[in-house]
């Protein structure tokens, strides 16, 4: 790897472990749990336990927090997919390489605000599932790095539904696009929950973070789709499906508007992973128990919601249609070419046809009678 900037000078490391108070010790362990470097069960016990909050943190503890954040968040991004040599758009042109090769170091800097430390103190001092003291961070004050940290924290806490129920009500999580992209089913408290504005995700460090998370998101959505067949509760399926549909629709609309179709790669990859063969809607809805809601309208709504991810392919197919018609002298020619290559490499047409067949098989009043209707291309005189 070529070093492009001299590393900042660090103070010499002490010989042994640095002394911290009991509270600070727990706070560092909570931080390591959020960053995925501490056993999940022990970490959940720590955030479920209360501890008397000190007046302030020592310099040693603050130094440890800074060090863990700097190393842990970068490591999380690299492991999630930043290490992959891939192509993403820079000013409308594809640029290849690993995350740190595609952008200059200055554009990759992660700056954390004091909100992160406030949250860590709160999560250590309070029983997060039943807090006595309020805590929240106004979303406008969060930096891209803060959003990444809160997403990691939410991911770590997902194993405990009580923690999820509390965290998703806080703005730092509720309005965090990464939390919605990763776990829409967990973020939606009810049918009316709406995803946040995704427009800021396509510029600056947020776009770089999304690039690093593409492989992770594709893996997570694929797992989630495969697990849907195990969902037995109609209400849960409907809520999760609606949240997924709203999230992906809003995200794809924002990605299309920002001309960053490369950042929606995970949606295409998820569908490619699903539609290796033809799939019937039972793949998603086969686990639903009982006859479901009494109204046919509600049952159909739930089944449609279950296929939220395949339904997004119509948007991606629309991008492909548009890309085909972009000319060499058009402004977004390079971006369109890149999307076309990705679509063709993924077998997008076949995947879209399979997804469409699965979605349409749910629709009532669609079965053809007396043979399929003739297609417009069958007109004999059309070629003349």
């Amino acid at each position, binding site marked *: 790897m070529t070093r492009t900037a001299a590393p900042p000078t660090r103070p010499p490391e002490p010989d042994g472990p640095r002394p911290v108070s009991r509270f600070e010790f727990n706070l560092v362990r909570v931080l390591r749990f959020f960053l995925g470097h501490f056993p999940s069960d022990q970490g959940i016990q720590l955030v479920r336990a209360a501890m008397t909050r000190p007046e302030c943190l020592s310099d040693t503890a603050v130094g440890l927090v800074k060090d863990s954040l700097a190393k842990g968040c970068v490591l999380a991004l690299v492991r999630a997919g930043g290490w992959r040599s891939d192509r993403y758009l820079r000013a409308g042109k594809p640029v290849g390489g690993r995350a740190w090769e595609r952008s200059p170091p200055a554009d990759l800097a992660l700056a954390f605000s004091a909100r992160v430390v406030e949250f860590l103190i709160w999560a250590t001092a309070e029983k997060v599932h039943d807090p006595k003291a309020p805590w929240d961070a106004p979303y406008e004050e969060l930096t891209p790095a803060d959003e990444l940290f809160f997403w990691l924290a939410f991911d770590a806490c997902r194993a405990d539904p009580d923690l999820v129920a509390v965290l998703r009500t806080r703005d730092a999580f509720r309005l965090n696009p990464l939390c919605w992209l990763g776990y829409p089913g967990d973020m939606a408290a009810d049918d009316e929950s709406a995803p946040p504005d995704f427009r800021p995700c396509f510029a600056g460090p947020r776009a770089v973070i999304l690039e690093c998370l593409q492989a992770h998101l594709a893996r997570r959505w694929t797992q989630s789709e495969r697990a849907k067949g195990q969902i037995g509760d109609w209400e849960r399926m409907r809520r999760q499906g609606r949240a997924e549909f709203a999230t992906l629709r809003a995200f794809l609309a924002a990605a299309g508007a920002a001309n960053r179709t490369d950042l929606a790669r995970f949606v295409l990859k998820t569908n490619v992973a699903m539609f290796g063969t033809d799939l019937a809607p039972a793949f998603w809805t086969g686990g639903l128990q009982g006859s479901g809601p009494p109204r046919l309208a509600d049952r159909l709504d739930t089944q449609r919601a279950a296929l939220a991810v395949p339904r997004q392919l119509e948007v991606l197919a629309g991008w492909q249609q548009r890309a085909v018609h972009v000319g060499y002298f058009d402004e977004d020619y390079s971006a369109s070419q890149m999307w076309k290559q990705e679509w063709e490499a993924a077998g997008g047409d076949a995947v879209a046809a399979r997804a469409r067949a699965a979605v349409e098989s749910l*629709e009532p009043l669609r079965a053809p*009678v007396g043979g399929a209707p003739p297609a*417009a291309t069958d007109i004999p005189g059309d070629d003349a």
Partner: protein
Amino acid sequence: MSRAYRITVKESDTRHLKAGDEIATQLEILEILPPEDMATLLREELKTRGFGEQDDGTLTREDGQVTVTVNPCSGEVSVKAHAAATVNQEAKREASGFNDIGPSESSLRDRVREQLKHDLDKKFDQEQSRLQTRATEELEKHLQKIQPEISAIVNKVTRDALKEKAKQLGTVTEISEDAETGSLTIKLEV
């Protein structure tokens, strides 16, 4: 001296219950002609099948308890079933008390009346769900019945559109249709 007594309270209520169910979907109309021409063909075909045009441009047909509505411009079709009934329910409860201890007769009567209200609500809820089931069953039955008709409408519109398109392309010399397979062959001179 303590004396026991028994009271019997009867309540009855009449309510008008309504239930409904609805599905909406999109007709798969191919864009053989411009959308407004396809909409015109669809509108004409629907009219021949007894659909009436509404002020908002949609076409509607009532089939018993079921209403089918088609928007020829967007191709959206909705099938709505409704059921309504005026239901009378009665409930009766008995309670016993003592004249010297426990609640007085009037408060006992009030309490029984309150319980009777809950009993009546429960009975009406059961009637409501029965009515809902009836509406849903009616909708499901009607969907099976109407599906071939909707497919036939879509096929007819597609055939008519193809003929129209062929006319625009040249002089039609021969048209042959096979109703069984749904195939349509148009020969034309360009």
